[in-house]
């Protein structure tokens, strides 16, 4: 037996706005916002118009939806629109930043930029090879210092640490997270002065400053990842008669490896853009210097700052180089993130059948 749906109204139905109503309303509100803006602020401005339109849209849409669909759906829609709005507002600066850097940096994104230093370059031409070398060397050394220390510190905190010592280490790691980067630069400079005499400015010093900033990030992310490794796995390993250190090396670390790797990559990405400590500790130069132990070493962020802040007579060449330097830095960070993701995927515990 079949019941025909048409015999009586279905009590389960509720009013529904037609599809596309949201977009039509949004467009309407934006137009009204634009008109309002032109009347109020005389010439038309895109930013305020969008803002007025969006502010108008929320109550209008709520009223419409409430009239047709009822209160629950109307509230739901408002929440959805607020969240979508927050998403757009969050993405706008990123999109704008990438666009600005790309459009301004692409002009000098050429072979010369990646094969020349700034030695004896005045005005046009020149490149950032010295800064790219410097960034890679300084960040590389900083990682070599910070990653083992951070990893071992996290292993101690999670696997061995008990009582006052471990609590104070956790506390000081938190304090280190909050160290202003310029202070890390001063620390490295002071340390080098103490060890090698005053005025020692070199790549190693910059790497030291960066590692001070990097260690707490590595400790924190690794610690969190080690803590989520289930205790059952450790116990399973102990029950097989595997010693504790071997359990950590062969069971705990591999299980958390993918997360640890991406944590380290994120830490590198975080410090690769540091400027202030490197200005103090690694200094400025226009020449290629691949020796981290002697003489100043240029890095990309400092290069960008230097080109922008100390331009020569034809300013646009310096500005162009600054933008291209910034673009290179963004691409480097992006490449690091991609590599991190690939590695994380590679090492992730497999669950396929």
């Amino acid at each position: 037996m079949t019941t025909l749906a048409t015999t009586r109204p279905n009590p389960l139905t509720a009013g529904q706005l037609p599809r596309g109503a949201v977009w039509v309303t949004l467009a309407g509100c934006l137009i009204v916002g634009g008109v309002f803006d032109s009347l109020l602020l005389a010439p038309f401005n895109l930013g305020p118009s969008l803002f007025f339109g969006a502010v108008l849209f929320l109550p209008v849409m709520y009223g419409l939806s409430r009239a047709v669909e009822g209160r629950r759906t109307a509230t739901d829609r408002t929440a959805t629109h607020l969240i979508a709005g927050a998403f757009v507002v969050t993405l706008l600066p990123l999109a704008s930043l990438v666009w600005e850097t790309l459009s301004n940096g692409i002009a000098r994104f050429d072979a010369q930029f990646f094969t020349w230093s700034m030695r004896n370059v005045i005005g046009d031409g020149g490149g950032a090879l010295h800064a790219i070398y410097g960034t890679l060397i300084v960040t590389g050394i900083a990682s070599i210092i910070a990653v083992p220390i951070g990893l071992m510190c996290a292993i101690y905190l999670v696997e061995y640490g008990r009582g006052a010592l471990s609590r104070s280490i956790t506390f000081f790691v938190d304090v280190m997270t909050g160290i202003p980067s310029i202070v890390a630069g001063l620390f490295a400079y002071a340390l080098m002065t103490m060890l090698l005499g005053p005025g020692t400015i070199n790549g190693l010093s910059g790497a030291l400053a960066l590692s001070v900033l990097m260690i707490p990030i590595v400790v924190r992310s690794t610690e969190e990842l080690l803590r989520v490794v289930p205790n059952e796995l450790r116990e399973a390993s102990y029950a097989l008669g595997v010693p504790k250190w071997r359990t950590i090396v062969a069971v705990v670390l591999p299980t958390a490896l993918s997360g640890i790797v991406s944590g380290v990559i994120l830490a590198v990405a975080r410090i690769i853009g540091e400027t202030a400590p490197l200005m103090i500790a690694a200094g400025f130069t226009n020449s290629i210097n691949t020796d981290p132990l002697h003489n100043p070493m240029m890095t990309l962020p400092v290069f960008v700052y230097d080109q922008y802040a100390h331009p020569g007579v034809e300013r646009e060449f310096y500005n162009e180089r600054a933008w291209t330097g910034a673009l290179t830095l963004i691409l480097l960070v992006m490449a690091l993130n991609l590599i991190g993701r690939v590695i994380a995927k590679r090492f992730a515990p497999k669950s396929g059948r």
Partner: protein
Amino acid sequence: MSKRIEINDLNCFYGAFKAVEDVTMTIEPRSVTAFIGPSGCGKSTFLRTLNRMHEVIPGAYVEGQVLLDGDNLYGPGVDPVNVRRQVGMVFQRPNPFPTMTIKDNVLAGYRLNNRRMKGSDADALLERSLRGANLWEEVKNRLDKPGSGLSGGQQQRLCIARAIAMQPEVLLMDEPCSALDPISTLAVEDLIQELKETYTIVIVTHNMQQASRVSDQTAFFNIAGTGAPGKLVEMGPTEKIFSTPDVKDTEDYITGRFG
């Protein structure tokens, strides 16, 4: 390959809290001994003292003696790692190593203990252990797949294979079937019957039918109240415990009048 365990006046603590009090018992080799009792009565805690896994928990310690064929597990200078190599353990929830393949999981005990073995020996051990755990036929074509891709029951049998690959003297099982369906449970119970030919087996279970099906000896643990330590109430041949126990509490528990 199978040793007798004697426990004398054993007390287990978690910090200041005494979880198990004054347990004295003898566990016979080549037999299955079941621990039954209400939740929180210290069965699992007590079981974990038999391979020194109790002390892995911060603040936990033990007083008393556990003799494995006369050797005290808690004697001075005893290395818990050596104890655990002789007394294997299977846990409540299947816990294969997620980063390892089925093969590596079974051989984990050897590999992680840095023992070298020829490829052919490793393959033989792999097959023997997996056959021992009734898992060989199901996984022989996918030994290089991750162990976590198996079903729950298969994972538990993989963990049993991993434990018996170490050829321990004693095998401890902490509610090995509580996370499994009836068919997998049956497979594990059949397996226990086969394993007792070779090993001393101690099993904690909440399932009275399971205790009566698989065990030769049954020990009943009980607790006086919250915060009080658990005690061994009665231990004896399974048939006797399930038909004419000496203590009234045991009878009440088994017939379902409490717990």
